[in-house]
């Protein structure tokens, strides 16, 4: 879908003030990232039409959902919602829940069919069950399926994983990435987990104290040395590219020619377009391409910038041949020894990568 989502709203609730005037493209996954209580959920409620804030303006592509004269109620916006806590209708079975929105969608507007959604989310064995018999993760999958089956124009996910334990999160994450790539529905994902952003998002809307501070592509958002998207493991980069089929050693090739990575794709990944995460501290720098070394992944990169980090560390922001950013963490001393300068071409030695999508 082309076009933009445009939201403008002002709201004061006690000490909290929301002041938003923003827009982002309706394509792929947009993460709404910020701490708890920064107004993410309120913004999402305004977009979905659950909250009618005076004076707010909401435009979805060429449709006006709210302005001074227009108010489109939630049920006519065709926005799918998945909440943090399970929100299945308890008096209906799994099938009843799945079909609730589907039945209310005019046949001409139905873009996703039941079988496809059931298969995408692995719901085959759950259909006849009552809602009370489902685990937390299963409930969220059904909620996702229910939202999808209403063929929404926009899917809003309000921290759908936050209430789940780590194990269940890991179990649902693949479904979410699949959804992000295959459903063709633009998504807004509210989260405060950097990991979810790195795996799922195409762009990030940073929100702080009721104000949107930045709207960035994922790569740009992660290129900043102080990016809030870095978790406890420190700075990292997300690389996107095509993955080849594994060779006889079980290794697959990733990325464009001349800047290829060899990665061990343990699971037989179906998709070829993938996302890798590289921790900056797992990358070293060499001035020449070292030949006799256990690290097999050597990429030619160009240094863009050197940033001092607290704790006597130095972050190199470098560009791969295809323009993607790779962050490298070294000590200032080694940078001095190698005489590293912006514009210089060096070899990035990558010790390990994680396949995140």
């Amino acid at each position: 879908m082309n076009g933009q989502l445009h939201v403008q709203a002002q709201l004061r609730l006690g000490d909290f003030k929301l002041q938003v005037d923003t827009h982002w493209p309706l394509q792929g996954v947009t993460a709404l990232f910020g701490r708890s209580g920064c107004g993410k959920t309120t913004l999402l409620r305004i977009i979905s039409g659950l909250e009618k804030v005076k004076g707010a303006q909401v435009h979805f592509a060429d449709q006006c959902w709210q302005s001074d004269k227009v108010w489109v109620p939630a049920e006519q916006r065709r926005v799918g919602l998945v909440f943090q806590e399970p929100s299945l209708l308890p008096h209906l079975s799994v099938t009843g829940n799945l079909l609730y929105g589907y039945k209310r969608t005019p046949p001409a507007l139905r873009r996703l069919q039941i079988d496809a959604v059931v298969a995408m989310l692995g719901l085959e064995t759950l259909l006849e069950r009552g809602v009370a018999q489902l685990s937390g993760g299963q409930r969220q999958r059904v909620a996702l399926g229910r939202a999808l089956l209403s063929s929404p124009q926009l899917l809003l996910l309000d921290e759908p994983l936050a209430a789940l334990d780590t194990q269940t999160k890991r179990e649902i994450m693949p479904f979410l990435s699949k959804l992000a790539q295959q459903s063709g529905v633009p998504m807004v994902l509210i989260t405060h987990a950097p990991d979810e952003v790195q795996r799922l998002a195409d762009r990030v809307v940073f929100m702080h104290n009721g104000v949107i501070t930045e709207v960035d592509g994922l790569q740009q958002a992660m290129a900043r040395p102080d990016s809030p998207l870095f978790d406890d493991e420190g700075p990292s980069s997300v690389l996107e590219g095509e993955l080849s089929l594994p060779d006889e050693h079980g290794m697959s090739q990733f990325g464009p020619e001349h800047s290829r990575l060899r990665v061990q794709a343990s699971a037989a990944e179906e998709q070829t377009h993938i996302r890798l995460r590289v921790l900056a501290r797992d990358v070293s720098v060499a001035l020449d391409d070292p030949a006799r070394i256990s690290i097999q992944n050597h990429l030619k990169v160009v240094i863009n910038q050197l940033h001092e980090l607290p704790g006597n560390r130095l972050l190199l922001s470098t560009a791969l041949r295809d323009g993607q950013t790779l962050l490298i963490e070294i000590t200032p001393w080694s940078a001095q020894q190698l005489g590293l300068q912006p514009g210089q071409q060096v070899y990035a030695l990558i010790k390990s990568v994680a396949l995140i999508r």
Partner: protein
Amino acid sequence: MFGLGPADWQAIHVTLKLCFFTTVILLLIATPLAWWLSRGRSAWRVAVQAIVALPLVLPPTVLGFYLLVMLGPRGPVGSTLESIGLNHLAFSFEGILLASVLYSMPFAVQPLLESFNNLGRRPVEVAASLGAGVIDRFFTVVLPLCKGGFVVAATLSFAHTVGEFGIILMLGGSIPGETKVLSVLIYDHAEAMNYAAAHRLSLILLVFSFLVLFVVYGINRRFQVVKI
């Protein structure tokens, strides 16, 4: 049957008719009212909630007196009705029906309010996001999830109307076939020293009331309004 005379049966008929219409009207009024009350905590809502609860604390004679003044031939409502060619409402079935509706209002609003509060906003919001309009949401989400509240509201309204006395006597008097309900008839029987007749009707009301409360409490326990 039960040794009841025609006057008794007539009173039973009036009572049941009154209770039935009161319950139907109350459900129609109390449902949107309780829904509105459950949606927020503004000063307006608190005021309305207090007004709805007034019959719980006021002597029925106070309410009956005001209604008599308002609805009688010289009252603002009664005289308006007469000026457009209708009858005033004092000493009529319509009058005691109106009084019953007001008097039993808290018994319909409270259980509904409680079950709407328990329901929370989420199920309704979910239904809206899935394309269900207001009426659709009411019948497919609110009604099935709050059915316990509706059953309790209906039963209590019905039962409480059976037990009305003072307000009906004030506003309706004791006109056989029109405003003479069971409670008034029992009073009449007792006044006339006809204790046997008073006994029969009193026992019927006692057993009926017990059964109603038994059912209500049973339902209350069974239908814990499901919160999601």
